[in-house]
């Protein structure tokens, strides 16, 4: 037997003895790393900051008429972030793996954050539920390996938001993710393609670092009566009546047309378009100086 043939045989034997696709272990305790996203992910975004998000006019209207007081309603006090936004929250992440006791294959990962519910990502090839099944915050996720990258498809997610300042993401959005591990680093790229509120897919990458000492504490949520208001009242602002949405641009010296967001504001070349735009707002203080 030639050496080449032996190597070929060994290769075939190896292929036959391992799963058809690569498997990377994502389980562990992961700490969020915020970097330049700290302002958005920890204290939260400013009202009216739609910069860099490919929203359409309908979502702009959702944001402009949104009142933060909405989350004082009993129905919303304990709402967790949904599958696509939870990565952008400030919470620590625990990923555990579910192993089939017979085959010893990982059949699912379970992701859990401080303020979330269990989110399984099934790897066993099960189909997604029918259209008429219930929606959840975590949605229904299945994963497929592409080399060492886990591609995740999420369906049946409840309505959520692309930014915590009222910019909505509809239930009709298509959500996909890429999970990528580089040693102690986890990068997750999320794709949100929302035919209702976005004109282009909204793509974000988020980093987590392995933290062997991390413990996720309990996070019970109790509904209380935070504000006395008539039964059935829903806080919101009438169209055209929200002056607060302009404060972000004024505070940071961002031209209003840029602060209003849209697909064009995602791209570096948009800076060129903005040259001279600040002159249109002579009273705007420039906090960047």
């Amino acid at each position, binding site marked *: 037997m030639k050496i080449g043939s032996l190597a*070929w045989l060994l290769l075939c034997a190896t292929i036959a003895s391992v799963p058809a696709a690569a498997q990377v272990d994502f389980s562990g305790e992961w700490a969020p790393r915020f970097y330049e996203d700290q302002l958005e992910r920890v204290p939260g975004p400013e009202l009216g900051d739609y910069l860099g998000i490919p929203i359409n006019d309908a979502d702009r209207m959702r944001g402009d*008429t949104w009142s933060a007081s909405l989350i004082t309603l009993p129905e919303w006090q*304990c*709402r*967790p972030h949904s599958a696509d936004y939870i990565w952008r929250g400030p919470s620590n992440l625990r990923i555990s793996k579910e192993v089939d006791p017979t085959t010893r294959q990982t059949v699912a990962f379970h992701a859990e954050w401080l303020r979330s519910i269990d989110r399984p990502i099934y790897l066993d090839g099960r189909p997604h539920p029918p259209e008429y099944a*219930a929606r959840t915050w975590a949605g229904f996720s299945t994963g497929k390996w592409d080399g060492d990258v886990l591609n995740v498809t999420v369906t049946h997610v409840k309505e959520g938001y692309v930014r915590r300042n009222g910019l909505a993401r509809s*239930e*009709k959005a298509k959500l996909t993710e890429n999970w990528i591990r580089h040693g102690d680093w986890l990068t997750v790229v999320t794709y949100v393609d929302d035919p209702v509120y976005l004109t282009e897919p909204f793509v974000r990458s988020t980093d987590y670092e392995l933290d062997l000492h991390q413990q996720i504490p309990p996070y019970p949520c109790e509904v209380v009566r935070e504000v006395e208001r008539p039964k059935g009242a829903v806080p919101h602002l*009438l169209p055209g009546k929200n002056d607060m949405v302009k404060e972000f641009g004024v505070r940071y010296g961002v031209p209003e047309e840029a602060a209003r967001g849209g697909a064009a504001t995602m791209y570096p070349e948009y800076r060129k378009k903005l040259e001279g735009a600040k002159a249109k707002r002579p009273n705007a203080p420039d906090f960047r100086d």
Partner: protein
Amino acid sequence: MRNIIFKSSILLASVLVIAAVAQEKQTPATKPAIEILPVRGNIYMLIGAGGNVTASIGSEGILLVDTGLANNADKLLATVNKLSVDVETKGLPNVNVGPPKAIRIIVNTHLHGDHTGGNVVLGKAGRTYTGGNVAGNLADAGEQAAIYAHEEVLNRMSFPAAGEPKIAFEAFPTDTYHTEGMNLSHFFNGEGVQLIHAPAAHTDGDTMVYFRSSDVLATGDVFVPSGYPVLDLDHGGSLQGSIDALNHILDVAIPEYRLEGGTMIVPGHGHLCDIADVAYYRDMATIIRDRMQDAIKRGLTLPQIKAAKLTYDYDGIYGATSGFWTTDKFLDAAYKSLTQKKAAK
């Protein structure tokens, strides 16, 4: 050696093909006309008959909330009967069992044909067991299932408005209530069943059905998450009544954890829901009402309100430009409902 590798490759490929074919064979070629979604306990949601049908199926028989369209009645009956047998046999084949349990109770959430169209077929296929100290007309006892509804459903079926089709007597409710609600006299399939009236909401005869132990609420068309509230003003519906009904659902529903699960809501049409879905919908309906009331207060006419695009941010989710209930029709009805209320004051 190469021969061994080639044979191994063929064997591997054959195994994969066989597995793929086997998997394909497991997939039904065509979907059943009416689909079944187990909700919790004895409660099932049946999709595809017209409006959603909620079924309680167990040892005491079958209770149906609504009966779908008339032309789907036979399919619905076959589905319900098969489900009854499957529940009895736990889906196992070749088990020697008796016929399906009887349909004993039908509840109509309102009068529309996509929810009452199967009353005759399913009602006649059912049976009422009675005797002794009972209320009602004993002459009909045992002939068909009891059909419960709010009194206004019977009134409107009995005396259809000009231009509306006559409805067969056999489709009429056999038992009505006229108060804010009623409880069935005793447990059915191990749980209490409450009928909750939603006044002047989708119509003036709306009933929501709450299965207390299963914790499932069938709402009828007072909650249809796929579109703007359908306001049948000609049959006593109103925007404010619809919002009140949504708030009532929120009073009844309790989430299992983090605003998810717990009380499950079967809407009149569309996918299975929970409290969060109703809260989103209530928010939308309330916000649009407030915007329209503000516009009316400012003296805007209906064409001006339409031009102002007050629903623009929600149209992508709930709006429609064709079909039975367009955004235009919703705005017409909402405006009329709000201004009628103003005139009444």
